């Protein structure tokens, strides 16, 4: 399996799934019209990688905005992470801009709904 790197566009985030380092990041903005179309291959790659039972896994979310159709995709991302969190050391950090309560609350919601521990950090 190879690492996956997708450069960001005006409406889709920078994606990096680095299988050497056991690292995954989503950065910038996410508001494509067809969020499922954008995220499906990424979530598939992540599933395949996590099925290889890595010893540790780090996930960083550094999104400035995401639309409601990306919201559902993000929940799926955390559900995939939850499935492996019992078998490997998982660290999930959600970065948000100073004072951005909406984004902070979004992280708390995902943690509550998926059962994944998400550390929030103000930029």
């Amino acid at each position: 399996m190879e690492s996956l790197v997708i450069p960001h566009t005006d409406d889709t985030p920078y994606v990096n799934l680095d299988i050497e380092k056991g690292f995954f990041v989503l950065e910038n903005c996410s508001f494509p019209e067809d969020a499922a179309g954008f995220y499906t291959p990424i979530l598939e790659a992540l599933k395949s990688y996590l099925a290889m039972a890595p010893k540790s896994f780090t996930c960083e979310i550094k999104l400035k905005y995401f639309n409601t159709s990306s919201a559902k995709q993000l929940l799926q991302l955390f559900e995939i992470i939850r499935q492996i969190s019992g078998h490997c050391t998982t660290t999930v950090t959600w970065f948000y801009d100073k004072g951005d309560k909406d984004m902070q609350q979004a992280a708390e919601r995902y943690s509550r709904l998926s059962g994944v521990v998400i550390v929030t950090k103000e930029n």
Partner: protein
Amino acid sequence: MQELGLEYLYCGHFTLNLTESILSFAENKLVKNEETGKVNKKTYFIMVESLQNITRHQKEQDKEGFFALQKLNENTVITSGNYISAEEVNPIKEKIEKINSLTTDELKNYYMETLQLNSLSDKGGAGLGLIEMARKSRNKLVYDFVMINPEYHYFYFQTNICSNVNNSVCPNTITQVKEIHEKISEAKIKLMYQGLFSQESLLEFIKMFENTEHSKSELSIQKKNIHILIELLQNISLHGLSLNNNKNEKPGIYTVGGDKNICIFTTGNFIENNKIDTVKNKIDYTNSLNSLELEELYDKTLLNPPKESIKGAGLGFIDMRLKTHSKINYCFDPINDSTSFFTVQLSIVQ
């Protein structure tokens, strides 16, 4: 406004960045020939000149400029508006009158003479802009002055470009545009676009919005504004009814208004009458909930999105209510037996 063919209108302070984003939007959307996909160079040139006239003569921050683009059959009508000092009124009037009195050949000579004189005015222009606008539009320049106070006048300037070279009819819409300007100023509307919506135009509107006065709010509010803007405009491009079978572009309307204390977004699109009840019930229900209930509904919808909203996640209205802490205003205006026009309005405290 529909009869006036108003496609784009902005009223407020024109920064360089805003002007650039208007021009980029114009290039991609407003002055493109729908059939050939080519940008109408003459129209683009006149837009650049009109916008430069506004920024060049813009005095203080509070002296608002105005820009409007209309499409009337074969004509594109561009109107600019800006404050000028009282002593500038007569020289401008004389210059325009002179240009309007000349024939095509005379205008060409006048252009060469002015170019050779090279007497740059203290604002950086040489009056060449006006001559070029007259030459490129092949129409008379239209203008009007409104006295604001003994010191300042408001200068309206209109250019008319006809895509049909054999047509010399020049609709003068300055009176109606002035009325619209007055109305939108009263309603505190800063920007209006009426036309086709797509993801591409959403990106342009975000850039444009980031260059308006609401971008001065604190970062978290700015992001909230953009968030709502994205959801509203994607509602048009995802759920709006396309009238000409082009599924990627949906007709609609978008306005931004308010002041430094409030940002008001209004969007409108066509909707099939048989969908009205579902949408109405959804908004009414969302409006009836308090914050806690909205949070619960958001969680529930995120976990189990309802089937009827396959295109979106069904979260849009809940998200807007949660983020704005205000009710969603809406109305449905019947168009015919099968179609209505659906308008949504959201206010965000800055």
